[in-house]
């Protein structure tokens, strides 16, 4: 009703303002869409040669060109490394073992060091895999505790993980050679310290 009393030119003005507003909203919303995070389309492969497979693919980590994850596509859960630039799975010889259940992998920034939780006969340990030397090292051999959820720095020098040594979950910080970092992490129990072999002095 109110609109009918407005003289013709102002009604025209009102509509142009509306059109302008509409355009502005459209431009702004398209800009917002462009800025908002978007999902990356990585091809799915039923044969298990890509990131996602017909089986559960879990616990992913991303750094640079690599995505590290655990997948049930084999006979048991195994750790896989996907190269997003070459679109292939990278070989990790000597990492996955038939008698070990692996979980929670993490990697250094360039993907050289891979740290993960491995469980053998119900005994859990934190392992470090070096892709350059293809060597696997148990970092928590002297720790009498259940361990899980490791994390590693970009240069691969420090590793933190959860330990149940004190009857609850605590966070321990170790170096790449399986030694607790002093001041932050208490040394393991005296009995296990005495079991450590003497390191040769340089």
């Amino acid at each position: 009703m109110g609109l009918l009393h407005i003289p013709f030119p102002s009604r025209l003005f009102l509509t142009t303002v509306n059109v302008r507003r509409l355009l502005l909203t459209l431009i702004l919303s398209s800009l917002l869409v462009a800025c908002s995070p978007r999902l990356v389309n990585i091809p799915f492969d039923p044969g298990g040669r890509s990131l996602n497979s017909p089986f559960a693919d879990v616990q992913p980590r991303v750094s640079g060109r690599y995505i590290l994850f655990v997948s049930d596509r084999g006979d048991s859960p195994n750790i896989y490394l996907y190269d997003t630039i070459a679109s292939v799975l990278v070989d990790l010889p000597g990492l996955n073992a038939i008698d070990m259940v692996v979980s929670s992998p993490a990697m250094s920034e360039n993907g050289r060091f891979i740290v993960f939780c491995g469980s053998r006969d119900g005994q859990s340990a934190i392992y470090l895999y070096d892709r350059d030397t293809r060597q696997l090292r148990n970092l928590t051999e002297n720790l009498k505790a259940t361990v899980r959820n490791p994390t590693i720095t970009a240069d691969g020098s420090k590793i933190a993980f959860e330990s149940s040594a004190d009857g609850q979950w605590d966070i321990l910080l170790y170096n790449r050679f399986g030694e607790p970092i002093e001041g932050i992490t208490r040394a393991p129990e005296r009995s296990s310290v005495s079991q450590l072999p003497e390191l040769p002095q340089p």
Partner: protein
Amino acid sequence: MYAEGLAGLATLVQIARAWNRRLAQVGWRVLRAGVCLGLLLLLSACTQDLPPTGSDELNSRYSDEQPALSGDGRFLAFVSNRDGHRSIFLYDLEQRHTVDLPHLNQQGAIAESPSLSYGGRYIVYLAGDTVRPEIKLYDRAIQQSQVLTAGYRAWFRRPSVSPDGRYIVFETGTRGQWDIEVMDRGSGIEPDLPDNRR
């Protein structure tokens, strides 16, 4: 003249008395504060034998879980119950104390699975005050969180951010099983890399 002098003396006496009273009051206050302080000191001395409960230790007598190191190794994010509800904490391994994260943990909302960028500027985590949790990104430079999964109708788990802060990978349940999804925040973001590589 004499009367005036007497009146002046009276006011002087009055002023002196008022000062005296005020001084006495101040004295009492000082004494009370001293006693309180003493008691507090005594109390803190008595409680020193207990394991640390404060937030300024890496480990507390509560469970501390889900550690995430920053790329440079300076910060460690984790989940703990030490403040009465499950929240995300950030520990500075160099300065040896926890770092405040204003507006990250919200009352009545879960905050889990933290992940850090290279210098610890971005914290990507799982959060939710509703039934379905969302993936959020907390920027320590502006002390604000942003929902990354707004508009996506799916279940999410275990988000993890790349060192530069641009990519986020997470588990999603859209296809009836857990799959991996990769999110790109775009080239327009400020990367969290060491100065020589920016």
